């Protein structure tokens, strides 16, 4: 059994307050729900599987942590963790690898969520590494590839032996071959040729000192599943997931937000467009999509009809090569 270190502040709400605060069908205390259908809906099945994975990892590892960026997948994962241990608080800390190129509204959302749930947040900052020369800014300005070292250092500093990530197998070709519990060596590297077979729902998390695992409870979810679950559970997200007007420039077929990290080039025109984000990452390489989807229901309609994958639409770093994600996973990123 793990010995979690959790910080609780006295003013925070209980998990019950947080989880069920906005639910339309909020239950009266002790009201019993009949549960007799004996068939799991898709979302129920995915939720039950994710909760099972989360509980397995928290029970079997000494020091698990949950990677939390404020992006929708990590928010859903945190919500599942809160449900998994209800009515106790989430028994593990969160870790954010901060590129320094953040959307301010996402950072604000992150801090609000942490305060509400009363969990501990550790932050590993890419900026610190750039400031003291351990890492150098890349010519293209993107900091996503720079996250690996701060992440691995945080893992060894806190002696984390399991990290929950929001990765989904539908996202990308390399991820389609990823295990739910994925072993990483002391360099954080993923070896696709040497993965452990994963049988039934028996997860083998044994590892040697220095090794750790990445655990992906959302492995079998698709982008649409995530959104339908957000709708069903009334989960709050940073506002930039919904349509808003923003000053953008079009670069390499993507809409990038003009601001501190993106300066318009001479040939580029700054326009105010109605956009939203499908993924949230490094502000310098995460593109917005034109959209008038103002709420969850609109987003679901939009995604159900879309013809472009989430990463294809919005991530400059994944466009670098056919195998960009594969290379980053091997290097110890996700």
């Amino acid at each position, binding site marked *: 059994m793990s010995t979690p270190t*959790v910080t*609780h502040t006295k003013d925070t709400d*209980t*998990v*019950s307050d947080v989880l*069920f605060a906005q639910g339309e069908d909020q239950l009266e205390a*002790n009201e*019993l*729900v*009949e*549960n*007799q259908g*004996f*068939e*799991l*809906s*898709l979302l129920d*099945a995915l*939720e*039950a*599987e994710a*909760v*099972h994975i989360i*509980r*397995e990892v928290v*029970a079997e590892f000494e020091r698990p942590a949950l990677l939390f960026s404020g992006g929708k997948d990590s928010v859903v994962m945190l919500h599942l963790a809160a*449900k*998994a*241990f*209800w*009515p*106790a608080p989430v028994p593990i800390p969160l870790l954010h690898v901060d590129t320094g190129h953040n959307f301010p509204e996402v950072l604000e959302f992150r801090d609000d969520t942490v305060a509400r749930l009363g969990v501990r947040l550790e932050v590993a900052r890419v900026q610190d590494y750039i400031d003291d020369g351990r890492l150098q800014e890349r010519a293209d300005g993107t900091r996503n590839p720079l996250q690996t070292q701060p992440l691995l250092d945080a893992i060894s500093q806190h002696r984390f032996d399991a990290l929950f990530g929001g990765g989904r197998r*539908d996202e990308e*070709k*390399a991820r*389609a*071959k990823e295990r739910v519990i994925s072993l990483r060596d002391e360099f954080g590297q993923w070896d*696709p*040729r040497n*993965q452990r*077979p*994963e*049988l*039934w*729902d*028996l997860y*083998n998390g*044994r*590892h*040697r000192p220095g090794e750790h695992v990445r655990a992906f409870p959302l492995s*079998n979810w*698709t982008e649409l*599943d995530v959104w339908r679950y957000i709708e069903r559970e009334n989960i709050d997200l940073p506002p930039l997931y919904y349509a808003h007007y923003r000053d953008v420039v079009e670069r390499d077929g993507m809409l990038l937000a003009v601001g501190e990290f993106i300066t318009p080039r001479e040939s580029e025109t700054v326009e105010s467009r109605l956009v939203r984000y499908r993924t949230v990452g490094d502000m310098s390489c995460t593109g917005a999509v034109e959209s008038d989807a103002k709420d969850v229901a609109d987003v679901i309609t939009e995604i159900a009809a*879309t*013809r*472009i*994958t989430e990463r*294809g*639409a919005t991530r400059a770093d994944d466009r670098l090569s056919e*195998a960009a994600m594969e290379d980053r996973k091997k290097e110890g990123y996700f």
Partner: protein
Amino acid sequence: MSTLLRLATAGSVDDGKSTLVGRLLFDSKSVLADQLESVERVSRDRGLEGADLALLTDGLRAEREQGITIDVAYRYFATANRTFILADCPGHVQYTRNTVTGASTADAVVLLIDARKGLLEQTRRHLAVASLLRVPHVVVAVNKIDLVDYSQARFEELERDITAAASALGIASITALPVSALEGVNVVDRSPHTSWYAGPTLLELLETLPSGADVQDGSFRFPVQYVIRPQLAGGEEFRDYRGYAGRVASGVVRINDEVTVLPSGKTTRVAGIDLLGKPVSAAFAGQSATIRLADEIDVTRGDSLVSRSDAPAPTADVQGTLAWLAEQPLRSGARVLLKHTTTTVQAIVREVSGKLNLDTAAVEPGESLELNDIGTVTLRLASPIAAEEYARNRATGSFLLIDPASGYTLAAGMVGNALTGTINPETRPLSYAI
């Protein structure tokens, strides 16, 4: 209500499996524009006319460079009523390991055969694995039907062969259908070329297969994952809360049901059931829940709550069937770890007693198991587990063997002599070691 069905594919090299999977994804409109663009680009680079749908399932760079598939890949597609998780298992490299992995979680296996070649040794091996792993449904896609001029006679001949082979292996439910993955015949859409075929298309069939077993038939089994005790951190209301978190492995549990805690054998009553924050009247197979008990008794991770009326007897002696997945061979006397439900115990392999010849489906004497072998063993455990025969219960009858030094998963294990049990039902032994 949209439901989930887990599939695994199996087939020999060149049966057209990648094309079939690509066709399912493409015709069910699960392929998006940027993915298709990339496939079209690569197809053009290779001098092909149309888009080679097999490329949709190409994964890693190493695979593209060598033109092989390394590992099981997971694909997702959906129709209005059902979402599918497809474990795409490569046919040649690490054949048993991949197929066993895919089949272990599958509700249905889609097995491909080439209409020209008919049943190969490999086909029988795939059927044997599906039977061994007790996959509820086996669907045989007789592919490349266009290359035998859409011949009804040829299809019916193969259908007879398949049904005979399956029933010899004890597979109850098998369905064959004529398809051409390349031409898109009977995968998602019907074709005038096979007007003689009145059955469903592959996708129609997959949409209507029952998912999972009927939960009300199974005995209640609940391996405890974690003990939830918020004390003061959950608020005053939950100060004395003590719940046992886990996933219902089989059956149904209701408030006031009498349950036995294994391996201790103590009995109590269910006082309450919480479904991820909501109190409920019952929980059933597949649900992650938290159970509160009427009496304060000692329950920890690794214990199981089971229905009192048919509680299994915990045992430290297990007869099992293994699919051996490691490079180093297994010999009698090996010391390993055994992971069963939520518990891991030390184990000694007392005897390797037989080896399955996958081609003849016969059990032969054997003293060791090599990579990809399937065989029977006798295990002695350091402490008893609440194991049941795999043929009765997939969840409480399955286990892993783990190398204590490297942590590697050595074997997929099934409690009971699955070989004599499923391969030759008539010779099924009257009593098992457990």
